[in-house]
């Protein structure tokens, strides 16, 4: 796959069809992959990679790149294409400036999960079908690939690309995922338990803004949390409440627009399951206003910019037992 992608990238660069290629670049180790913009064949030969650790969603980089002259090639995994469509629907990307190459994905691996099993000191890693062999400074391990998959990939919602100019690899299907199970579990707790659960999670927040900055839906020209005039600017986690405020507002701002790409939880240095906030909104929207998947159709009208006269009243929440 990686070779096919490299050839495609080089071919389009050589023909002048695209000016640059947004892809993934290999790092110091076997897992620390960085999104990168490649502009020539040499860069691609030396650094381009597509493997188990290319989890980063590249769609958001298009906001910046598609403003430059010329066309840019971007490789998008199925879930990334939803973000891409959502950005299109919000006019954040100029479609004509982008050449989307869809690449198939069989789930990405979470290095944290591997480290939790094998400990520190990973120096080599290879994936072979269902197994991953890991060599550390101290020992050798073999683990099931399934056990190392990122949470969002375990609960993958779709292996189908909803946007592309060209597809490499096989097209998949929209999956029947169990992504709302955990939300339901929290819903079934008592209010006190829920409060405790979230306080425990959110109090770890260090307000690094990684969740916001990686989020394709959080693409505001000026975020209200950075805007001294907004009344909501706050630079540090001050009291635990301030944090709740940040995360509730952020979740609300992306409600109906979040495609559930899971980047927020992936990048959180403190391991806060932020996707559970977004998924709550998605679940509620599906239940109250009918199934809606952001990014599925760039022409669709989002659930918070539409209504029906027969929408349920807020009392479905406030008066429920």
């Amino acid at each position: 796959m990686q070779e096919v992608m490299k050839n495609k990238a080089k071919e389009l660069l050589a023909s002048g069809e695209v000016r640059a290629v947004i892809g993934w670049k290999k790092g110091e180790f076997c897992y620390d992959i960085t999104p990168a913009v490649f502009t020539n064949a040499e860069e691609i030969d030396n650094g381009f990679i597509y493997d188990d650790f290319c989890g980063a969603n590249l769609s958001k980089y298009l906001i910046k790149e598609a403003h430059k002259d010329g066309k840019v090639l971007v490789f998008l995994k199925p879930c990334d294409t939803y973000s891409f469509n959502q950005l299109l629907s919000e006019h954040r990307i100029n479609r004509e400036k982008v050449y989307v190459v869809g690449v198939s994905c069989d789930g990405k691996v979470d290095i944290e999960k591997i480290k939790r099993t094998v400990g520190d000191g990973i120096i080599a890693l290879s994936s072979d079908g269902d197994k991953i062999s890991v060599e550390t400074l101290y020992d050798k391990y073999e683990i099931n690939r399934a056990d190392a998959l990122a949470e969002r990939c375990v609960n993958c919602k779709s292996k189908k690309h909803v946007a592309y100019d060209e597809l490499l690899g096989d097209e998949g299907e929209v999956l029947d995922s169990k992504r709302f199970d955990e939300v339901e579990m929290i819903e079934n707790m008592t209010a006190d338990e829920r409060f405790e659960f979230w306080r425990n999670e959110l109090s770890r927040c260090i307000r690094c803004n990684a969740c916001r900055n990686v989020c394709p839906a959080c693409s505001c020209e000026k975020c209200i949390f950075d805007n001294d005039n907004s009344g909501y600017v706050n630079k540090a986690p001050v009291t635990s409440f301030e944090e709740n405020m940040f995360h509730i507002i952020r979740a609300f701002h992306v409600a109906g627009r979040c495609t559930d790409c899971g980047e927020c939880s992936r990048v959180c240095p403190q391991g806060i399951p932020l996707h559970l906030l977004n998924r709550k909104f998605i679940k509620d929207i599906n239940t109250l206003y009918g199934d809606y998947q952001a990014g599925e159709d760039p022409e669709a009208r989002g659930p918070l910019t539409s209504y029906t006269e027969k929408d349920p009243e807020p009392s479905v929440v406030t008066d429920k037992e």
Partner: protein
Amino acid sequence: MQRIGVFVCHCGTNIAGTVDVKAVAEAMKYENGVVFSTDYQYMCSEAGQNIIKDAIKEHKLTGIVVCSCSPRMHEATFRKAAQSVGLNPYMVEIANIREQCSWIHKDMATGTEKAIILARTAVAKVHLNAPLTSGETPVVKRALVIGGGIAGIQTALDIADAGFPVDIVEKLPTIGGKMSQIDKTFPTLDCAACILTPKMVDAAQNENIKIYSYSEVSGVKGFVGNFEVTIKRKARFVDETKCTGCGLCTEKCPQKRVPNEFNLGMDQRRAIYIPFAQAVPKIATIDADYCTMLKTGKCGVCSKVCTAGAIDYTQKDEFITEKYGAIVVATGFNPIKLDKYDEYAYSQSKDVITSLEFERLTNAAGPTAGKLLRPSDGKHPHKIVFVQCVGSRDTRECGKSYCSKICCMYTAKHAMLTREKYPDTEVYVFYIDVRTPGKNFDEFYRRAVEEYGVHYIKGMVGKVIPEGDKLIVRASDLISNEQLTIDADLVVLAAAIEPDKTARPLATMLTASMDTNDFFTEAHPKLRPVESPTAGIFLSGACQGPKDIPETVAQASAAAAKVIGLLVKDKMKNNACVAHSDENMCNGCSNCAKVCAYNAISYVDKEFRMPDRTTRVRRVAVVNDAVCQGCGACTVTCPSGAMDLKGFSNKQIMAEVDAICK
């Protein structure tokens, strides 16, 4: 930093009875920014207003808070007072310490404590107030009426009478609409043509009215007071300026087998035609689908017989653009298609007809010259069954869930007229209910039953089966609870009415909202029934909902009154508390436009200087002050906070929240 004055009103004892007004005025002296605070018996009185005016001048106040009755009562009064001494009226805030404080609390301590909080909340807000000015836009003093039925004609006549030029765009070759096809009108039974055609002539002769017949609206730009409309004048292959309407061509045209839509296809006309004798404008039109000359280039009879030389086979569609201050939609209705109603055998038997077809059969200018004859064999029917609610109040997919409103009455009319003209004919009417809410309506219906012996049967017809030259009608009588079978000669279906098919694309062009049935929505169902939520768009007639003629005419005149009210203004004063988008923060995501009920938001591509000194073109929202009504829906949908509402800004509301929770 604002210099704020606070004025606490006693309102006699209305406020002072349960609020210690002196204590409120004293407490306000210590609020940040307050440089003057006082109380007075009646702030709204001339003396009270003078206290305010003097204080503004003396203390150079930049904002004032009046603690008094509801702003719904005297906000305007105090704004005017402030303005008279040069303070922007939007620098005035009211703390409602009467309706929302003194009148609901009995205890002085409670009332005073709350009044202080309400006052400081208003002070907190006024700190963030900014002077606002209402923008003004000039109004183009010309109106457009889309649709030339009775609604459009009436609206146009009323507007023209007030002295404003008005254009009517009618998609058919003549104005007149549905009413021109109707024989008599209920409940007075006067002849429709006798009351409609003079109005058509009036419209044609009125120097303020210009009729674009055989034309359609193809594009709308602009906003209230300043619409720019493109009108497509379809080629009729006859020079309107030359044709005298003599009708010779329509007699000589060799193509005789064209279904006559005016008579609902029950007879034929020529390829060149004038829809009916009283058509306005009385100008011939060539039907390009049937004209041999246009299709094959061989014929040219009409051109030869036309002494005026009006025939022009080379005519092309023409587009003209005109500016208007207001647009009235009067696109009317149509009966629904009945091809999905197999149970009534409409498609199988020629003798199952719609009520509108029945109108033509009884009209002297109709295909039977007014004699009621069966379409199949031209025989006189002796047993007629009328079926009500065909497609109306029908929640199935092929039907309409609403009541079409007019069918009960016209069916009563048909039944009555039939019995009067042909007393030997038995008439049955099947109904769910008979709805007669209108002046003299119920009396009319009762006459049909009592004086004319029409058989009204509560119940629905289950099936109509053509058998020989009879139509076997199977129905149930819900009152006697028995099954009926009637061997009718003619079955008349009261088909539901629906908005004209052109309404939906037109609504899109006008950005006027519609309901799920494609009826135009009014700005307020009770209080603004003839206006669309989109400013400058008005609704006339059945395009807004099913209506009979008197109602249509009433609404048409009401719409005209609204249009006149708009056109008499040289300039329109816009709402000052409008939304405003900060282009530096705007993402151009379009969410604000999606929730705007008034289509006040558009987008422009604008070049911005980026931090790295390059430039970038970004799409940003622009609010049209003339159209924005200031509801604030957009401000909440905007994630970046770029969209804010003047007079009710995010910061102002937050300051109020903070002051209350302090």
